[in-house]
Every structure is written in structure tokens, then in C-alpha cells.
């Protein structure tokens, strides 16, 4: 049989199986190989909240989606071209995400009676046998059996053998997409360094999968995806949580301050704790606290002592930290609070993404409690914004909330990483010691940015007290004076607002800087909006995109920028939060687009929503200044 070689501009593959089937690893390895080949890419891992949900059931399905191409790739893909299903539950859970006419690679061992029953298919029904899949191309194969056969001459436990079956899939897809196996082989040798037989088994099955593609004579095509036209430079692949960690490490290096990280494990933020724990050689102390409150409180204690104090969590944990964040606002100490948002309220959907903590960041503390809010827009941008969060906190002696989310945290993309010498120093200094007792030391004297000095214990002659009670400006003495309270509320607000002079101006990401429509996004929606707007512009729409990474304070020029458009549309993965703030701040009739399904925007659905607003609203012709 002749095997055709087709060139594709972009491909989306979705690996789906039981939580125990190793789909996340398969996806990550395919991603690394693909990144090394120079494709642009985005990934979306999706897994159940339970560590081992009942095997074979729909809730137990774990998936990994990878979108890669020779063109710019900004999203993990709305729908996939290829769906790998290791069992019938995986098919059931993911079929709706496969393009009509798409490819299915199905492990028939996962479609036996028991598995079909676990996946709750009706008695006697088997989607591989009836016409459920008639509009797709289905490749059926008994992956479990072929794995067993490949390893029949090796002395391995049944469990170890079964665990290798994901390598078969990986090998097969490497063959289909013309990818080399060497980086994966290297990885396996390293991972199972202490168990060479397990490494050998995995490699053998990987190669078996590859050769199966070549010899089985069931595949009619192989596919090539050429290198993407990325900016020249050196790249690596990175997830949002990894780059957040690196941003903090860079900040500690460039501020020459020790970093103290107080945290309590929570999905999807825990990887930041894991990551930082490994980099103690950079002067980083990690503290796994007894709870969220102790986590933030310990960071405040360390900040009082002159460290870069950082705490991390997700929505429910941030709620618990609220009072302590207010203390940091009151004390005017630098503090970075990382919120890796997930779907709420309450425990919500721990492994699903959402942007619904923006108003919490703005207003979710008692009293008038202003803090800075920033949000990264892509997995790699997490590096930049974690660094920025640290810089602002330290240079302005103020708490900063950093709003990433589950989608950014676990998603990955190629990153043209910077070098240490390209990064700016973070300028911080401590209050100087004083000899003899002159006038009492005044801890709350401010500079022209309304910023007080950092007066750390161990400094002679500046012993002083700070606290959560309202204080008199300059002296820091407790004060219940009515006029003083009003003044201090205003001072703390002015101090936060002044940060606007030290952040970049808001840019238009795409399109003209005046026109009919501006799509204004923030955070992780960047990729979807960018792609949707690019396509709409191709179709002839006058539409622009601006993406906010600095949310409180807003960039100084934002109001002027917004006024250049007839209509501002704000898409968010929540029930409408930034849109309220924009309406409130700028008194404009901004329109929301909201998706609250625990998943990022698909490009097609976003385009449709934007077009609906455009056609519904009959946007009046703009009166152009002449």
C-alpha cells in the first residue's frame, strides 16, 4: 500500500484515556518533541479532580490536547483532528470535541463488555460496532495486546507491562506525524534510570508503535507539519506554573533579596510550591504552612524582616487570606499573592479554569483595601508578570495580586526565554541605621510616590511599631481621629494609583487604534481573542484587540484608548467582571461576552459571539473628527 505524505499547516491531537493510562505524560512528550522540531504550539491538559477516579468511568477520563502548526498557534484548538481513546469512557467524554471527518485511534481492549458498562453505554451497544462513528475515520487496534506481545520476552509484572501501552500510542503518532523518537528515548532512560528494564520496556513499546504504523498497512497517509515562522532565537517549552516560578526566581536574583514563599497545597497552584522548593540554592525559603492564613501571614512576617514575601493559592485559599492581605495593605509591606484561579464558588471545579476572582482581587477584603492587580496573558507571559508583580510590590511597598488560572498554569507554549543580563534590576533599599536618639523614627514618612521606606528589624536606632489598627501618617501611631482616617484611606488609594506611572502604557495588540470595535480582554483569554480577531479582520471587520495585563491601577492611557472605539466588547471566562469595572471606571456601555464552563473560549464560538453583538447592536457610524 502506498502511503501518501501530506503537509498540514496545523494539527490538533487529543489524547484521552483513563487517569491511570498516562495520557498527560504521552501528551507532554509529544509536545516536547514537537517543540524541538520548531512548531508553534499550545496545550490544554484536562484531568479529573480525583487522583484515581473509578477506573473506566467517564469522570475518570484524563485528556491532553495539543495544537501545533507551522503558523502562529495561540490556542489549544477548539476541536481536534485526531482523537486517541484508550477506552470507551474516553470516547464518550471526548467525541464532541472531534472534527467531523476526524481520525479516531481506538484501543479495542478498552471497548470490552466491562469497559462499555463502566462507561454507561446501553446494554449491548458498542460505538465501534454501530454507526455512532460513521462520520469519522476509525483505526481500531488492540493496543493492550500488542504491548503485551512486544514485552513477552521480558520479565515484568503485569502492571509494569500494562503501564507501557501509552508508549505504543506515542510511537504510532510519531510515525504518523514524522517525528523523531530520540528526545523521548532520552527522557525514558533518565526517568527510569534506576529501573533499566522498565526503561527498556517503554522504549521497546514506543518503537513497536512506530513500526506498527509503518508495517500494519492500515494507514494511508503520514503528515508533515513544517517549522513555524517564529522569531529567531533560542526557545524552550514552558507551562504557566513553571514560568511563574522562574519569574519569582528571577525577581529574587534581580532584587538581591531572599525570597520567602509561604504556601498551602491547592489545585492548580501547588506546582509553584513544588517548583520553588527545588531552587533553594537561589536563596529561596519555602514554607508549607498549616493553612492558607498561616501561609500568607508567614510571608508577611518575612516581608517585615526584609524578604520578598510571596504566597500562592487558588480562589478558596485567597478568600481565607483576605484578612491578612488587608494587614499587608495597612502595614504597607511588599507582598506578592499568586492566585491561580479555578472555577468557583466554594470548592467549585478544582481542575477547571475560570477568571472569576477579578472582583475578589479588586474588592474582596474588608474596608477600603486597595492593592495592585496584574494578570499574565499566556503561559510564557507568566514569567514576565510574576517578575512585574514582585517589582511593583518591592518598589512600591504594596501588596500585589497576580491572577493566573488553571488554563495558563497547565497549558504550555514555546518560550523565547530571556537571559539574566536582559532583565532589569529591581531597585530596593532599606532604611538606614541611626546613631544616638535624635527625633523619634517616623516609619510612615513618604516619598513623592507616596511610598514609605522599608525599615527592617536589626537596624539600629529605628526601632518602631506597626500594626493593623488605623495609624497616623508619618508617626504610625494608632489614631482613631475621623479626619485622619479619611486622609489615610485616600493616601493608600493614591499610593496604589500612583503605580500607574511606573507600568507600561496600554498597547493595541492588533488592529487600528481607533475604529468600530475594540475587544478588550485580560489574562488567559489572550490567545483565543487574538486568533478570533485576526480571523474577523481577515473577513473585513473593523475590529481591534487590546489585552490588559495591568488591571489595578489601569494603564494611564486606557481611557483615551477606549474612547477611540464605538463599541468595547469584553470577553471573559466569568459572569462579567472586568466589564463591570470598565463601565464603572470609564462610564462607557461596554458589552460582555461570557463563557462559564470551566474551559477557555473556542475561537469559533468567540467569533460568533462577537458577530452577534455587532449585528444586534447596529453600531452607529462613528462621527469622525474632521
Amino acid at each position, binding site marked *: 500500500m502506498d502511503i501518501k505524505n501530506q503537509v498540514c499547516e496545523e494539527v490538533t491531537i487529543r489524547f484521552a484515556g483513563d487517569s491511570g493510562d498516562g495520557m498527560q505524560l504521552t501528551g507532554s512528550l509529544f509536545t516536547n518533541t514537537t517543540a524541538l522540531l520548531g512548531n508553534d504550539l499550545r496545550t490544554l491538559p484536562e484531568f479529573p479532580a480525583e487522583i484515581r477516579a473509578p477506573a473506566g468511568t467517564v469522570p475518570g477520563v484524563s485528556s491532553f490536547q495539543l495544537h501545533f502548526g507551522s503558523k502562529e498557534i495561540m490556542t489549544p484548538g477548539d476541536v481536534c483532528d485526531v482523537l486517541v481513546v484508550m477506552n470507551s469512557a474516553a470516547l464518550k467524554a471526548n467525541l464532541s470535541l472531534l472534527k467531523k471527518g476526524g481520525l479516531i485511534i481506538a484501543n479495542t481492549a478498552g471497548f470490552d463488555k466491562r469497559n462499555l458498562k463502566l462507561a454507561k453505554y446501553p446494554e449491548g451497544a458498542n460505538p465501534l460496532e454501530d454507526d455512532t462513528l460513521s462520520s469519522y475515520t476509525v483505526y481500531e487496534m488492540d493496543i493492550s495486546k500488542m504491548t503485551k506481545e512486544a514485552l513477552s520476552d521480558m520479565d515484568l509484572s503485569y502492571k509494569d507491562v500494562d503501564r507501557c501501552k501509552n508508549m505504543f500510542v506515542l510511537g504510532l503518532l510519531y510515525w504518523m506525524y514524522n517525528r523523531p523518537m530520540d528526545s523521548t528515548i532520552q527522557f525514558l532512560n533518565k526517568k527510569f534510570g534506576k529501573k533499566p528494564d522498565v526503561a527498556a520496556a517503554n522504549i521497546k513499546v514506543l518503537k513497536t508503535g512506530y513500526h506498527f504504523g509503518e508495517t500494519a498497512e492500515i494507514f494511508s497517509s503520514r503528515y508533515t507539519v513544517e517549522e513555524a515562522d517564529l522569531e529567531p532565537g533560542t526557545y524552550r517549552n514552558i507551562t504557566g506554573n513553571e514560568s511563574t516560578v522562574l519569574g519569582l526566581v528571577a525577581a529574587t536574583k534581580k532584587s538581591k533579596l531572599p525570597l520567602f514563599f509561604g504556601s498551602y497545597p491547592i489545585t492548580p497552584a501547588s506546582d509553584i510550591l513544588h517548583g520553588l522548593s527545588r531552587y533553594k540554592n537561589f536563596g529561596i*525559603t519555602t514554607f508549607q504552612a498549616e493553612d492558607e492564613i498561616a501561609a500568607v*501571614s508567614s510571608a508577611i512576617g518575612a516581608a517585615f524582616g526584609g524578604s520578598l514575601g510571596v504566597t500562592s493559592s487558588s480562589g478558596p485559599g485567597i478568600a481565607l487570606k483576605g484578612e491578612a492581605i488587608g494587614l499587608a495593605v495597612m502595614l504597607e509591606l511588599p507582598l506578592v499573592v499568586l492566585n491561580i484561579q479555578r472555577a468557583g464558588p466554594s470548592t467549585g471545579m478544582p481542575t477547571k479554569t475560570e477568571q472569576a476572582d477579578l472582583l475578589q482581587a479588586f474588592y474582596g477584603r474588608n474596608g477600603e483595601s486597595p492593592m495592585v492587580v496584574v494578570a499574565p496573558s499566556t503561559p510564557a507571559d507568566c514569567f514576565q508578570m510574576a517578575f512585574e508583580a514582585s517589582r511593583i510590590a518591592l518598589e512600591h511597598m504594596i501588596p500585589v495580586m497576580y491572577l493566573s488560572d488553571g488554563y495558563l498554569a497547565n497549558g504550555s507554549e514555546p518560550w523565547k526565554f530571556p537571559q539574566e543580563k536582559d532583565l532589569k534590576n529591581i531597585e530596593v533599599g532599606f532604611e538606614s541605621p541611626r546613631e544616638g536618639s535624635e527625633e523619634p523614627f517616623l516609619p510612615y514618612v513618604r516619598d513623592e510616590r507616596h511610598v514609605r521606606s522599608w525599615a527592617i528589624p*536589626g537596624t539600629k536606632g529605628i526601632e518602631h511599631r506597626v500594626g493593623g489598627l488605623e495609624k497616623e501618617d508619618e508617626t504610625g501611631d494608632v489614631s482613631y481621629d475621623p479626619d485622619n482616617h479619611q486622609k489615610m484611606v485616600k493616601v493608600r488609594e493614591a499610593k496604589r494609583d500612583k503605580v500607574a506611572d511606573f507600568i507600561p502604557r496600554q498597547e493595541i495588540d492588533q488592529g487600528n487604534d481607533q475604529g468600530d470595535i475594540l475587544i478588550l480582554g485580560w489574562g488567559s483569554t489572550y490567545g483565543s481573542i487574538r486568533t478570533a480577531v485576526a480571523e474577523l479582520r481577515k473577513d473585513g471587520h473593523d475590529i481591534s484587540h487590546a489585552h490588559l495585563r495591568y488591571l489595578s491601577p489601569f494603564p494611564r492611557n486606557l481611557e483615551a484608548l477606549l474612547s477611540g472605539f464605538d463599541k468595547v466588547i469584553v470577553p471573559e471566562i466569568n459572569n462579567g467582571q472586568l466589564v463591570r469595572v470598565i463601565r464603572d471606571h470609564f462610564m462607557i456601555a461596554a458589552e460582555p461576552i461570557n463563557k462559564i464552563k470551566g474551559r477557555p473560549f473556542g475561537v469559533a464560538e468567540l467569533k460568533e459571539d462577537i458577530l452577534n453583538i455587532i449585528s444586534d447592536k447596529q453600531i452607529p457610524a462613528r462621527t469622525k473628527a474632521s
Partner: protein
Amino acid sequence: MPLETKIDDFINSNGNTEEEAVSYSSKDFSSDQDVRWCPGCGDYTILKQIQNVMPDLGVPKKDIVFISGIGCAARFPYYMDTFGMHSIHGRAPAIATGLKVSRPELSVWIITGDGDSLSIGANHFVQLLRRNVNVNLMLFNNQIYGLTKGQYSPTAPEGTISKSTPFGSIDHPFNPLSLSLGADGTFVARAMDRDPRHLKKMLNRAHEHQGASMLEIYQNCIVFNDGAFELFTDKKSRPRETIYLEDGEPLVFGKDKDKGVRLDGLIPQVVELNGEYSKDDLWIHDETDTTKANLLSRFFEHPQNGEHLKFPRPFGVLYAVDRPTYDEGVLAQNEYAISKREANLDTLLAGPETWDVK
């Protein structure tokens, strides 16, 4: 090569010698703030003793930090001319942990109360003790919520009539010393506001101990719970109702030192030293004995209907042992990591695999 940070530079260039430290007087530790506790509050004597003990510690003032939570006692840092933070309810141990771990050279003191540490902040209290962070925790126990004007507290005896329990409290109180021992605290001691000399001694011991030092101080709230500890503090009843523990000494008490405590197996008994028993038969206090410390912490029957206690209430150091401190452990691990691997940011940013786009 140790990692040089700004804090290290700063501390190194900013030394204060110990000779200077010993030349302090207690006045040097009193801040310019007016003290605002109710007249007659037990907090005053505790403040005075802490100010008195400070010059003896040999620690430069710049290296002393007081951290408190919320409650009457929590105003304390404002009255000390050292570094201080009056923080939020119950969280002082967590804040102190962050500070001590990142700045181990500081002498960190936590000022807290029975509501602050045994109710809203109970979790942080036990975690601090089991981790053995090298700080001193002063638990001002007055068995009442003073600042919120008189609700029963987690150390108030069952049946306490208070604003929130007009028919008597129902919940069983915490025994702070048993709780501390249960949390594997390495230093557990008790003192009272009305015995300043002994209090000062206990403060010194708490400071000397390397690890989390938990000192419970009976403190009279004259407004909402006056006389809660009168049996122990009153000069007349004190000899009969209290026992002052000394390491290596027998458990003797009474006005004429005519009573003692002996152990029958693991059952403590109060005996008269009048012939049948002599000092040689008594329980010899051993600060390192966990089992006996637990027994001592349970000498806790409360007086009822004017009846005397069955056992005298122990004061002094019940338990003191050495165990590696958390801050030392963190420091050692960090230093090991620093000595093992160069902090090369460029290598870290590049990660395990890179590729070039031309």
C-alpha cells in the same frame, strides 16, 4: 559560597556590640506611647517584668521583635521600644514563624492571649510548638475575652457565667499546658502576674531555651474576671494552693513546707511530711520527663464552693528539652542547597531542552 543578599550586607555593616546591649536599663525598653490598659490590669506587671528582663538578655535592642495578635494583651508591642507588630487575630505565631525563619538572628517574642491562641489561632499555636520555631510565646491567660467586653474564653471553666453565657458555659476548657505538651512543645512553663520575681525568672528561662518556649502567664482581668486566680495569687492561700517547681528538687509546698507530692506508680498523692513521709519519699522534679510533665499539667481541679484544690497548682518549668529547631533546620537545608549548586539563572531559564530558530 554563601549567597550574598542585601539583608546580609545590611546586617554585616550594621553591627551593634553585645557590650552596648548590656548597658541598657529597663527604661530603654519603654516606648513613648501611653499605656491604655484598665487601671489594675495584670498586664501592667507583666509589661514591667518584660521590660526589666530585657537588659539582662544581652541582645541588642535592634534585634528584638514583639509580635502580637488581637486582644487586650496584643497592645503590648506598642509599649515596647523595640521592633514590633500588632497584627491580626490569632496569626502572630504564623507571622513570627516567617520572620524567624527568614531572620534567625532576631529575638522574636509573641504576645498572645487565651482567645487569640487557643480559639481563633489555636491551629497556629500548636503548629508553632510542634515545629519548634525558636521564639518565645507569652500566653496571657485571663480566662475571659476582655477587649470584646466579657465573653467566656476557651480556658474558662465549665459553667462560667459571662455576657455570652448567661446560664453558664457548656464547653470544656482547654488546659494550655497539656495542649502544649500534646503538641510536643519543648518548653512548657507557667507563671503569674502577681509574682513578679518568679515571672522574671521564667522570662529568662524562656529566652534561654532554644526552641519554641511556651510560657503561660495567669493574668488578672480586673474588669471582667477579677479574682479568677486569686486562690493562687493571694499571699495567704498561695503556699497551700501552689507548688513552685525546681529541677532536681522534691515537690514540696505549704506554708511551713510541710506538704509534698509523691508518686504511687503513676498516681500522684498529696502527703503530709509529718513522720510517715519525709522529703526522700517525694517526687523529684525532672524537667525532661514527658510523663511526669503530663501529670503535672493535669494538676488542674478547679475550686468549687470554696473547697480547696485537691492538688496544688504547679508554677515554673514543667518541661524543657532540646530538639532541633525549625529555623535551624531550614537554614541548614538552604545552606546545603547553596553549597551544592550554583545559582545560575541563565541555566535555570534555559531548562532541560532548548532549540534554536534561525
